[in-house]
């Protein structure tokens, strides 16, 4: 049976294969075909014959395509593009052409779309950089899968710990006795002054804190690119040093550093220190950001061995000594880990020999190098570990912003395509297949996403600097070229492009065109529902972010403002990093020198100031010599002025007093937490009780109890603390000052400093600033949230603005009529805004419980926390409402004051 409709379908598809033929042309041609068939049929032919005749007629014109193309082009004699170059996929080209045309016609909306999306994409890109950076630590070393650090786990009479450090002789022992070890290298921090190694070159003197002794084979384990010098021989001889590019520039400017001399002071804890000469035998690239082992100067291991001959024999001391190994390709890590316990046996033996008792437990274990940064939390890590928590949080926030940007995009697309329903309807009717339309919408969305992407790179560039400062990272645009990052971004582009276009492409093209052309211009109700959801969604996310930001800020302020229990205003802190013996012997004299200046009202010397990590501790026992079951308390060694200078409150007994000689040798102070730790039920009970400390083996009695001042900041609960007069740990001078512009206080302090510590660089800080730095992570999060919240709100408002102006335009006529009928500007604005107000309220209702839950979980980590404030929730909701009203109101107002005659004229 001949089916005319089918035949025509087939014919249509054939014609459509031509590329210059647009949908309208096809309709016209089809009409012509049908007319002809009718005609022929009227003259007596049957349908099939008529069709074939008509079709043949068409086939007579060769290259209809080219004709159509020529007809449309502006140049005479133009050749259609597909007859010119063969390599542009023609369908893509035409979609892009159409998309560009659309964009040009609706510049403003396209701009809003792109702007919103760019912001979202930029945030995402930055976070992707951050996350990949964090997860890529130490993966760039060759054979990184065979690289491990050896760590120790031990239990002895003072307690249990796991540490990243190992005994010095372990490295060579592994090389000797274990065939599966290809390389073993040690990294050792300079003994006492690891954080402040004085380095001198002529006039230039600086304290360096990334100085390490390393074995010669270090560059066979870690990737350390040499720019000058030979990796094999640079670290062979004693007193040889390899420096980084940056260090070379710092000390030598542009001069070639190779062969020159640096004077370096290492404190081997022998009582005196002196500068020794080192020859520069190599220059390497600066250590990258994504490694846990960061260095500026590498000293040769033979230097250390010369100065500390016992190094290769000492199995019991592992302070700041690290051992890294590279397993041979065939070795199994688990296997090796079992076998390496044989080396542990040596430790057991030596310990027993030295201490005359058995060590309960000592074992080594392996840590894969690439997991150290994120997962290792042992004692004495080289640097603070990464934090999965913040990786998650930053990722979540970035995704939220992106979501808002995408929602924006879809919303505007829907709005725009609603205006194009007429066009869409016509095209469907005259022959455009649905596939065509879907392709076109997707193409448009993809193109806009691409443009947004390009724009966002500019944004990323400007976002990176503040982000780096905030998060303490060193991200750069170069990171974008890494394969992992590139792949993630490409995936993002596709996902967003297609995802955002999905709804308009598939849902909106699925309506009946006839009703459109018959004049019923109503957009599909599906579109409206989606738009509503999107507006609510965008604002819900924004409100959620606002609440979280405000709460975090509140908590931060609380932590800073809460009574810390000591005075930290106007305290100038001088840390003595060199020539400590002078400080510890003559600190009273030194203090007096400073007190000569009337602007300095007080001075005290201690082992740490409030805010410092305060890791030092005493084991206290009531039974002299027997430290089993000893209590462990943190300790700060102080002088007589510490308590009054920091205005620490005494709860029982008294503070140290000058003149009472016994105070120095026979007295402790403890805090309230210490009272509990030692098993007393109230401070009075603790007074006059005597304890021996493992540190100096002296027995002293408790003469006073202080309040629990927050010597470590607000995040941790106050731990039990002893205050002791003990000079051997002192290293910090704190001056109470009265800073004002008239006195040259710093100059004076510097002069006194130079008198007592000649040649040592003068560095100072203010205690309140130091303390603030404690909340680095929280402040980071506060800033990050602040920025992203603002961005999120901006994007949401952009979207709202676009939508509102769009709707206002569409209802121009309606508004015009209402005005003519007597509506005031106020009425119009209310009408437009009313709907939005309800949506925002809904958004607030959705966002609030989510925010409540999130903030509760976050606050749980803090020892001292605020109560979540209901006022914040209300403020956020009203704020969003106000902003939304402003945005919509502006549009409404514009519509309201427009001359109704203008809008009605187009009837």
């Amino acid at each position, binding site marked *: 049976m001949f089916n005319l409709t089918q035949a025509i379908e087939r014919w249509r598809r054939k014609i459509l294969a031509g590329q210059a033929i647009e949908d309208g042309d096809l309709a016209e041609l089809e009409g*012509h075909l049908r007319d002809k068939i009718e005609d022929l049929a009227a003259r007596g032919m049957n349908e099939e014959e008529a069709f074939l005749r008509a079709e043949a007629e068409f086939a*007579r014109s060769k290259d209809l395509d080219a004709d159509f193309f020529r007809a449309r082009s502006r140049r005479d004699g133009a050749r259609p593009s597909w007859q010119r170059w063969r390599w542009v996929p023609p369908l893509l080209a035409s979609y892009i052409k159409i998309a560009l045309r659309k964009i040009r016609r609706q510049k403003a909306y396209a701009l809003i779309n792109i702007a919103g999306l760019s912001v979202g994409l930029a945030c995402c890109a930055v976070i992707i950089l951050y996350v990949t950076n964090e997860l890529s630590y130490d993966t760039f070393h060759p054979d990184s899968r065979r690289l491990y650090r050896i760590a120790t786990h031990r239990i002895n009479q003072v307690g249990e710990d796991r540490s990243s450090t190992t005994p010095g002789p372990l490295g060579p022992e592994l090389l000797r006795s274990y065939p599966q070890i290809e390389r073993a290298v040690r990294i050792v921090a300079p003994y006492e002054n690891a954080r402040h190694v004085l380095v001198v070159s002529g006039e230039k003197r600086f304290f360096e804190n990334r100085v390490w002794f390393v074995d010669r084979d270090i560059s066979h384990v870690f990737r350390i690119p040499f720019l000058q010098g030979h990796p094999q021989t640079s670290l062979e001889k004693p007193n040889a040093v390899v420096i980084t590019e940056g260090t070379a520039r710092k000390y030598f400017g542009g001069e070639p550093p190779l062969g020159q001399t640096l004077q370096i002071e290492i404190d081997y804890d022998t009582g005196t220190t002196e500068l020794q000469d080192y020859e520069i035998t190599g220059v390497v690239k600066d250590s990258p950001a994504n490694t846990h082992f960061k260095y500026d100067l590498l000293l040769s291991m033979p230097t250390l061995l010369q100065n500390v001959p016992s190094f290769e024999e000492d199995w019991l001391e592992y302070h700041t000594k690290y051992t890294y190994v590279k397993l041979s390709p065939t070795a199994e890590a688990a296997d090796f880990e079992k076998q390496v316990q044989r080396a542990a046996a040596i430790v057991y033996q030596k310990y027993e020999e030295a201490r005359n008792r058995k060590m309960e437990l000592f074992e080594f274990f392996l840590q894969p190098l690439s997991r150290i940064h994120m997962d290792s939390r042992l004692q004495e890590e080289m640097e603070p570990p990464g934090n999965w928590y913040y990786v998650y949080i930053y990722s979540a926030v970035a995704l939220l912003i992106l979501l808002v940007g995408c929602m924006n995009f879809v919303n505007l697309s829907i709005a725009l395509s609603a205006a194009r329903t007429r066009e869409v309807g016509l095209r469907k009717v005259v022959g455009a297949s649905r596939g065509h339309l879907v392709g076109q919408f997707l193409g448009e969305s993809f193109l806009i996403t691409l443009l947004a992407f390009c724009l966002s790179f500019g944004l990323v560039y400007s976002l990176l600097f503040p982000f780096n400062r905030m998060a303490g990272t060193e991200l750069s645009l170069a990171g974008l070229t890494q394969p992992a990052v590139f792949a993630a971004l490409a995936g993002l582009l596709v996902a967003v492009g297609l995802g955002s276009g999905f709804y308009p492409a598939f849902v909106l093209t699925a309506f009946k065109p006839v009703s459109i052309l018959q004049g019923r211009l109503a957009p599909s109700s599906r579109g409206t529902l989606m738009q509503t959801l999107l507006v609510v969604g965008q604002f819900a996310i924004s409100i959620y972010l606002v609440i979280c930001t405000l709460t975090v800020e509140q908590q931060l302020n609380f932590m800073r403002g809460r009574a810390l229990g000591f005075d930290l205003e106007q305290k100038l802190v001088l840390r003595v990093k060199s020539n400590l013996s002078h400080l510890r012997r003559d600190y009273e004299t030194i203090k007096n020198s400073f007190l000569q200046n009337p602007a300095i009202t007080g001075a005290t010397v201690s082992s740490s100031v409030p805010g410092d990590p305060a890791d030092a501790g005493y084991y206290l026992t009531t039974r002299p010599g027997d430290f089993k079951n000893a209590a462990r308390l943190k300790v700060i060694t102080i002088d007589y002025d510490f308590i009054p200078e920091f205005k620490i409150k005494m709860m029982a007994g008294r503070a140290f007093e000058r003149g009472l000689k016994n105070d120095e040798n026979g007295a402790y102070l403890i805090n309230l937490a210490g009272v509990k730790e030692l098993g007393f039920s109230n401070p009075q009970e603790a007074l006059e009780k005597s304890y021996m400390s493992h540190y100096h083996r002296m027995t002293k009695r408790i003469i006073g109890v202080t309040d629990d001042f927050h010597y470590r900041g607000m995040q941790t609960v106050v731990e039990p603390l002893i205050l002791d007069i003990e000079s051997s740990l002192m290293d910090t001078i704190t001056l109470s000052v009265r800073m004002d512009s008239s006195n040259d206080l710093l100059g004076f302090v510097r002069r006194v400093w130079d008198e007592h510590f000649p040649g040592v660089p003068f560095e100072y800080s203010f205690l309140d600033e130091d303390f603030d730095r404690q909340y680095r992570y929280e402040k980071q999060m506060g800033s990050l949230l602040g920025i992203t919240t603002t961005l999120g709100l901006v994007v949401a408002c952009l979207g709202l603005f676009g939508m509102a102006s769009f709707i206002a335009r569409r209802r121009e006529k309606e508004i015009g009529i209402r005005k003519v009928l007597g509506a005031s500007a106020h009425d119009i604005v209310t009408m437009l805004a009313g709907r939005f107000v309800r949506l925002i309220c809904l958004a607030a209702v959705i966002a609030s419980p989510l925010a409540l839950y999130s903030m509760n979980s976050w606050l749980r980590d803090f020892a001292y926390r605020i109560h979540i404030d209901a006022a914040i929730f209300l403020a956020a909701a009203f704020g969003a409402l106000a902003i939304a009203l402003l945005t919509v109101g502006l549009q409404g107002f514009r519509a309201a004051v427009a001359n109704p005659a203008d809008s009605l004229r187009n009837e």
Partner: protein
Amino acid sequence: MIAKAMIAASTKPIILAILKGGENYGYRIIQSVREISGGNLEWSEPMLYPVLRRLERDGLVKSKWKVTENGRFRKYYQLTPLGHEELKNERLQWLTVHVAFCKILDLAAETK
């Protein structure tokens, strides 16, 4: 058989002239041409449409879609003022050539 070049040159003025008589659509234009020329001018049918497109691009005609009684869509064309002008131009041109030919090729007699 009329030469291709001649057909090409004559298409434009013929279409304009037909449209002068009122609004018209593709298929009917072709039929009219066939009738008026007594079957001598048989245009390749689809060829008409690119020409119409071009005329529209040049602003000589404008088009409008209409719905027919049996629900089909049809594109109607009509002359613009510019088109009227152009028609006058073309008519003049053809007349000039015709007069020259009349004299040279001795056409006068057959065109009566």
